[in-house]
């Protein structure tokens, strides 16, 4: 694929016009791979920190009942299916089929959005049951009397590592959905993002954990608008493939979070 892509990128009859690539791939792809390599170390450090705490903390809390595991399994299936639709989107882009490229990217975004919604519901449920991070406890907030309130007080390592790791991943999935939206729909995606942001800001109650984080969509709107203003291009097959690399990476990270965080902390009764 890489060699063929380069063949297309180089203009015929102009030898030496472009410098030979270092790894036999176009620069955007190499750049994305290098970014993903560095990002994998971020997640690697977080996963190692979680596993470290999991090993040395006894007893380790087991807050995930059957409902949580079922929810997380559906979330996993959503991400795996989104990777398949992403691959189909790349194929469609390489065929030059714009309609199906958009359709497949839209399907990928739908699976990603389903993942975020399910994850948000899981977070809200755990927080309602009393799971909160130590920092909030010190502020006097989140002093819940739920089933997991004791876990937050006695084993703060669990809530700190759980929320830290899953929040980082959820942020990546959100960025991924927006990234795909920009690639698929370009400037037409901006009003959609704006409507979702404003609706979320108005509808999410102040007691909900996502009341303030929803404004990340506003920041994303500004960033996406600047990018589209500076480079209002029609994204091609290479752009779709590079966006796909990012999306598959998000899926890949979840393949470690799901077993390590959820399946290692199950309480099946």
């Amino acid at each position, binding site marked *: 694929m890489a060699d063929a892509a380069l063949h297309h990128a180089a203009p015929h009859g102009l030898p030496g016009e472009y410098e030979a690539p270092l790894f036999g791939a176009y620069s955007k792809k190499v750049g994305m791979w290098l970014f993903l390599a560095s990002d994998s170390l971020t997640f690697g450090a977080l996963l*190692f920190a979680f596993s470290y705490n999991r090993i040395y903390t006894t007893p380790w809390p087991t807050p995930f009942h059957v409902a949580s595991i079922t929810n997380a399994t559906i979330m996993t299936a959503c991400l795996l299916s989104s990777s398949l639709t992403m691959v189909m989107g790349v194929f469609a882009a390489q065929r030059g089929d714009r309609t199906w490229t958009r359709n497949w990217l839209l399907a990928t975004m739908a699976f990603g959005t389903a993942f975020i919604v399910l994850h948000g519901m899981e977070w809200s449920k755990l927080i309602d049951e009393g799971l909160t991070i130590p920092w909030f406890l010190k502020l006097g907030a989140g002093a819940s009397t739920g089933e997991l309130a004791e876990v937050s007080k006695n084993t703060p390592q669990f809530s700190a590592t759980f929320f830290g790791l899953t929040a980082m991943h959820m942020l990546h999935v959100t960025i991924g959905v927006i990234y795909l939206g920009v690639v698929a729909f370009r400037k037409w995606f901006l009003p959609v993002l704006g409507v979702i942001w404003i609706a979320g800001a108005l509808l999410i109650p102040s007691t909900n954990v996502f009341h303030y984080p929803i404004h990340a969509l506003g920041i994303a709107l500004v960033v996406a608008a600047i990018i589209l203003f500076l480079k209002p291009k029609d994204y091609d097959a290479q752009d779709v493939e590079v966006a796909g690399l990012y999306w598959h990476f998000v899926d*890949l990270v979840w393949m470690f979070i799901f077993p390590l965080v959820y399946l290692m902390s199950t309480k099946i009764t």
Partner: protein
Amino acid sequence: MHDAEADEFTGHDSKGQYFWVWGALLVLTAIEVVLGYKQMFEPVHMLELLLVLSIIKSALIIGYFMHLKFEKAIMRWMLVISVTGCFIIMYFFFFPDAGRVLRLGVH
């Protein structure tokens, strides 16, 4: 893009293999969930087993979905060796200390 060019672009791909990989990933996930439900191993062995399954799943995603299997060897090996090397260094930083804490009984 002409059809011939599109064929060249994806010459070594077939869509069918991606459905097989997707199916394999779902089956491996199902195995992980069953292991989680049954809880038939000690936590440390369970951790090792789940990690092995996760590494297999990640290899499938990187190799096929991310297409690294079909990239040039220099790119493939540069990425795999550098990232794996960093993880090995992280492992030696973190886990001997975790074991020491357990042996000393400090919590």
